[in-house]
Each structure stands twice: as C-alpha cells, then as structure tokens.
C-alpha cells in the first residue's frame, strides 16, 4: 500500500491526511473525545446538536443547510458513541472533488472552513448559545433517547450493557441522561462547550486528492481553537465478570423474545492478544459459519439471527439473538455450550482458517473506503498502538488455535438479559 497518512499538529488539533486519488470525494472526519463521565455526558451529547443549527456566518438553520446544498450537497453529519471509557463526538463531511463538477471555488477549502465554523464559531446571542436552538435540541435528544425502545434489537443490546456495567460510566448512553437535559440551558451549555473545546482530544482526518501542507494551511484559516497542545487518550480500565452470572428478565409488548448476553474478555484493542480475541469472536459468532449461527439457527432452527460482537475498546463481548419466547431455556443452553466449547478448544481447523480468511478479507476491504480507513487509524490513536492494515493482517495470520483457546480462558459470562412478552409464564 503506497498511500500513507501524513501527520501534523496545529495547536490542539492532531492532523491526519491521506493523499489519494481513488475517490470522487474528499472525506473529512473530526473526532473530539472526552472521558465518559456522569456529570458531563449530557452536555457533551447535546453540544453537536446545537452546533449543527447555525454558525456566525450562517446563523439561521435554513441558510446553514442551503450552504451545504450549494457545496454540491455536501454530506454533513455527526455521531456520538462510546469508545472504551471515552465519549466521542465525530463530525463527518463528504464533499465532491472539484474535478467532477464545474465548481468555481475550492470545495475542500470551503468544506473545511464550514466545519471549522461549525465547531469553533457557533451562532450566539448575548454571549451564549441561541436559546431557541438549545431548547429545540434538548427536545430532539430527549426524543432520541425515548426512541431507543422502538427498535427492540437495539433496546435489548443497550439494556444488557447497562445492566452489566451498572457500576461504571459505561452504563451511560452516549446520548446522555434525560434527567440532566432539563438542567441545561443556553448559558451553562455554552460554558460546558468552552470547557470541551479546551479539554477534548481533537483529531482531524482528511482523505482525498490533497496534501498535509494544503490541509494545514486551510485549517489555520478555519479553526479558532483555544491555544494548547493536543491531549491524548487514556487506556480503559478492565473489569472482571461478576462472580455469579446475573439474569435480568424484562417484559414489554413484544412477540419475539430478545436474548442478549454480556461477557468480559480480559483484553482490549491495545493488547497484543487482540488479534487472537478477534479470531475467537469470529469463531464464536462473527460469521455465518460461526458456532452461534450454525448451532442456534441452522441446526436448531431457533432463530433468524444469532451473533456475537467484540467491543475491543471496552473489553467486552456481547451476544444477541431473537428467539421464540418458549425457547428461551433451550437457546441459553445451546449458547452457553458454545462458550464452553471455545474454552476447550473445541472448534474445527477448517472453521479456524475460514475465520482468519474472513477477518483478513474485511481488513483488506476497508482500504477501499475512505471513512473506514479513517476509523481504523483512529482506533490506533485511541489505543496508543501503531497498526497498519498490513501489520494487523500479519497479526491475524500469525494467530494459532492455541492462542484462541488461551484467550477463551479469559472470556467470562457476566449477564444474561431477556426481553419477553407480558403474558404469564408457562
């Protein structure tokens, strides 16, 4: 791979630029992370919602959005999520490379200028955020939190993690807490925002037909961040599974039961055992040839989906399946048998090789997507490791079945969560 990230620093911003001509767009991501905390989670979550309402140059939301349309419908958005013990806000911009349209302005320059304004020069009144925007976006965040229950698959996943991590900040939603929303207003949110600008770790990524020098000169004109140095991310604290597995059953008006399990894995993304853990996850439930899919779905016909997901930044593994309510016990038994089988090293060599091949394929594939390459690189920044696509592929290929069985010993079931109907049991 000849394409490499070029690195630079400008004040509090780390710059990462991937010069490439392969795509029809420039992909821009700005990550801003702070430690996930009870006190700040809601103000941090609300901030990007308010920032996307207007800037000093485009204070009205309508003119703000028209500006994006004029930049050939630049794709602008943001995401909020948890990575390890951090709460991350990611702003995204995807904008057409000038050479495909008859643009008169440098679209990358305009886009970075726009993003700089969004993050560092928001629309204000009387020295704080606009009251109207803050109140409207409080309602929006509140509705988003409420809406989690609409998608039962997501709801069960969130609830399982909440129960498993009930003594840690990780139990919190990246969207924050509804009860804290009422305490936020245009003034105290603006103060929280300024603190966020001073303290968050900022990483700006740009991929496309450009260079570090060009990006650096554009950023200097566009971002008005407080002076200082970039801050770095701390490693997550690892926890052990509770001594006795806890079982949580919740009732709602559902037809299908949602069965989720939470496990602690004892390692994180930064560990040199992470590659083994990824192969473990692939064998257990990452693919259609995995134990969960084959045993819960194909052999027992109990479910349409049955899979596992590794959160390497937090060091947890979650399993999810949708089953007929009467089949709960059977499904739990089958799933626990698969976890035990992994501990005994009871898996076929064929499946082991398939899993390696699939993970290698995924790692190669992500080279074709600008945003995925950016996300992969950001995982390094978060975890203080230096993996490239190639070095990580080599790590995956070097994993042995014994390595997988060894990491399986550290995987412990912590929580079983079952969402079922309201009918009486029986």
């Amino acid at each position, binding site marked *: 791979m000849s394409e490499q990230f070029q690195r630079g620093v400008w004040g509090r911003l780390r710059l990462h630029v991937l010069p490439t001509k392969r795509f029809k767009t420039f992909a821009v991501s700005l990550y801003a992370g702070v430690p996930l905390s009870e006190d700040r989670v809601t103000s941090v979550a609300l901030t990007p919602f308010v920032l996307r309402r207007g800037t000093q140059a485009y204070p009205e939301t309508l003119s703000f959005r028209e500006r994006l349309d004029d930049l*050939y*419908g630049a794709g602008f958005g943001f995401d909020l999520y948890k990575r390890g013990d951090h709460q991350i806000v990611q702003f995204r911009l995807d904008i057409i490379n000038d050479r495909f349209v008859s643009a008169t302005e440098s679209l990358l320059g305009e886009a970075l200028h726009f993003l700089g304004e969004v993050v560092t020069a928001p629309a204000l009144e009387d020295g704080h955020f606009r009251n109207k925007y803050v109140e*409207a976006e409080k309602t929006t965040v509140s*509705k988003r939190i409420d809406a989690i*229950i609409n998608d039962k*698959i997501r709801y069960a996943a969130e609830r399982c993690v909440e129960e498993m991590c009930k003594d840690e900040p990780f139990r919190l939603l990246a969207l924050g807490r509804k009860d804290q929303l009422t305490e936020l207003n245009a003034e105290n949110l603006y103060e929280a925002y300024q603190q966020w600008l001073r303290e968050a770790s900022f990483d700006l990524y740009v991929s496309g037909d450009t260079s570090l020098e060009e990006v650096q000169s554009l950023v200097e004109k566009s971002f008005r961040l407080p002076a200082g140095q970039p801050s770095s991310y701390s490693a997550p604290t690892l926890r052990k599974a509770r001594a006795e597995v806890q079982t949580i059953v919740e009732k709602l008006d559902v037809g299908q039961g949602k069965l989720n399990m939470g496990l602690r894995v004892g390692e994180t993304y930064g560990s040199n055992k992470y590659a083994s853990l990824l192969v473990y996850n692939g064998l257990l439930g990452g693919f259609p*040839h995995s134990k969960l899919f084959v045993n819960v779905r194909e052999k027992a016909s109990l479910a349409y989906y049955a899979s596992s997901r590794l959160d390497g930044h937090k060091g947890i593994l979650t399993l999810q399946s949708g089953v007929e309510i009467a089949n709960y016990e059977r499904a739990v038994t089958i799933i626990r048998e698969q976890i035990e089988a992994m501990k005994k090293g009871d898996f076929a060599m064929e499946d082991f090789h398939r899993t390696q091949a699939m993970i290698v*394929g995924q790692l*190669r594939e992500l080279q*074709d997507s600008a945003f995925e390459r950016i996300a992969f690189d950001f995982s390094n920044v978060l975890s203080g490791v230096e993996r490239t696509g190639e070095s990580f592929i080599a790590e995956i290929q070097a994993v042995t079945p014994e390595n997988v069985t060894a990491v399986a010993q550290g995987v412990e079931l912590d929580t079983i969560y079952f969402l079922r109907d309201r009918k009486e049991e029986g």
Partner: protein
Amino acid sequence: MTAKPYPKLQETLWQEKLDNGLEVFILPKPGFTKTYATFTTRYGSIDNHFTPPGGETIKVPDGIAHFLEHKMFEEPEGDIFSQFATQGASANAYTSFDRTVYLFTATGEIEANLDTLLHFVQNPYFTDENVEKEKGIIVQEIDMYRDNPDWRVYFGLIEAMYEKHPVHIDIAGTADSVRSITKEMLYDCYNTFYHPTNMTLFIVGGIDPQETMERVKRDQAKKSFPEGGEIKRLFEEEPIQVKTGKKELFLPVSLPKCLFGFKEEPGDEKDAVRRELASKLMLEALLGSSSTLYQQLYDDNLISDGFGHEYNTGPGYSFSIIGGETRDPDELVARVSQALYDAASNGISSEIFERTRRKKIGAYLRMMNSPESIASEFTRYRHKGGDLFTVVEVYESLTLDEINERIKEHANPDRRAISIVRSGPA
C-alpha cells in the same frame, strides 16, 4: 464484449450478452482491493401469479421468492456460506418487490468466488427435509419484523394504498403462507425465473475486465439450460383509488409513527427513470432538510431528524412515502399535504430547483464511491430500462416546468393514504 466509456464519471463499463442469454457487466475500479459481484434475477415478491414459458399458469404462496432465496444457500455438499468463507469472501442475498439479488464481496480468490456464486445460484437443491427446517427460521424472521414499528408503518401504508397489486404483500409472507410452501413449488419458481435470460451478473472492483469476462463465459458454456422463453406475469387490475384512506395499528412506540403518500398510475415504462428522478427531486425540494417547510415543522416539534421521503416505482406501482415520528399525525399530514397542494398551484422557484438539483447530483456522485451501491443501483436502473451512469445527464436535462408539472400530477388529494403506528391503550 463492448466497452462503454463514461468520461464525465471517469468510468468504463464492459458488457456482453452471452449465448445462453445472461447479461454480464463489468466495471473495473483500478486500485481497489475489493471485488463485489451481484447475480440478480428479475423475480421478487410481486411475481406470485405467472405462466412459465410453455407451461400452465400458477399462483404461488406469499413469501415464496424470499423463501427460495434462503434455500439457494444450501447445496448437497453443505452450506455455501462456508465455501465462501474458506475463500475469504462474505456472501449475502436479499429479496425485494421485483428482484432477488445474490452477492459476494472478496479481496482475493476472485475467480473461485465467482465460480461459487454462479454455481450455487444455478444449482437448486431442495429436499422435503431442508425445506421444512427452514420454516422455523423464516417464521422467526417474520416475528422480528412484526415487532419492528418502522417496518409495520411502512408496510401498513402500502397495504392502505394497494388492494389487488401484490406489492402490498409482505416480502417474507406470513407464518401460514410460509408453512404451506413445498419443494415442488420452489422448483416451479426456480425453473421459471432463474433462467439466464432473466438474470444479470454485475462485477465491480480491482479486476481485469477481459480475463473476468472469459472466466464467466467458460463457466456458462459448460452448463446447459433449457430453451428460454417469455414469462407471463399476471396482475389483477388495480383500482386507481387507494384501498383505504387511513390505517392504524398499535405497538409500543415512544411517539406515534406516521407515514403517508400518494398513489399514482404507473405511467409509461420507457419514461420510468426520468419520472423517478424528477419525483425524487420534487420531494427533496418541497420536504428536504433545507426546505422552509421542514424547518417550520421542526420548529413546531412536529417532526424529528428521521422525517424523510422516498419515491417507489416498479411493474404496476408508483407511490411516494413521506413522514416519520410525530407527536401529532393528523396535524403533520394536514400541514404537509397543504404545502404540497399549494406547491401544485404555485410551483417552486427556480432558485430552489437549481439548489436541489445540485444537491441530488452531489449525493449521486458520493454514492458512486461505493461499489456496493453501484452494483445494486445499476441493476435496478437496468430493469427499468435506464442507465445508472447517465443519471447526472438526466438531472441536468430536467426543467423547472417539468418538476412543477410533476407536483401537479402527484399531489392529488383523492389518492392519498395514511398509515399510523401508535402505542395501544395501556
């Protein structure tokens, strides 16, 4: 094999119609590591009543196209997912109203994976036992969707609009219809719709077009197929009016979900693509996130970020879908409808038209970064007699008068249907 260059997009499409009738398209993407292939039959959930070439007319149970899709992955030698995994590829499939698509994505062993794709889709293997076993899995899939309010409100709207046309039938069918499916029925459908003359192969990625085409030709030349012929698809006449103006159902949701739209006569098939693009531009101009109406509805807390619109058209159907979650479905429908009726009388301005056109062109070019989207959209356009690679030209040739005419035709108060999902009485 012919090569068709699209200089504006900097792409070249290679194509050939093979002796057995299969149409093959190859889009080389130099520098990409991933290859993505789709093998598509022009056969979906609406094709439930038909006359095979030289055969008797038959009516088949709801959900059979989707059932067939599930069963194609089983071969005498085992599960085809495992075969792909051994070759580092991930495979999938989906069924829509008028298509069934089989696909794989891989970064290596492209030839072997292509062989596997062609092999499994052209080798049905149904037994009484494997058909029976699949029913449990599909019933769980149906139950999963039954608990999903977004899916229910979406399908509820199509049910409200269409009385006879099978577009109103759930793609997966019902638990009862699925249980009535036999292996003989599956073979009848397979033999009718999986003939090469009814199928398209599309391959995109970092491949050599000549070598890849030769590989496909050699593979197909080895296989024999019966003579193809015309498939007659039978549709009962669909009334012009909607079936019912309003349909409501109860599910636990944080806020009511409300979708509504207008049913149209399908129109001339040769204009289908132009009409679809004009309709989408019209909806975006009137209801998109940078429209005045959107901002007013948002300010009045009547809509959330999920508010959106789409336009669907296919053999014998054509309709819009507008909406999202709302505190007050009646007020939302009234306000949006009134705005559409006003626009039908007054038209939109040329400024809004131009801005929206730019936005749509930008979104299209961004989509062209994704091989997955290209593959899926290419075949969809092809089936409608259009060409994905000339979408920009179509957008550029649209006129303001045409859009304003489209609004008048579309926003017909007599052809509106509404679907609502809200929480039931406790």
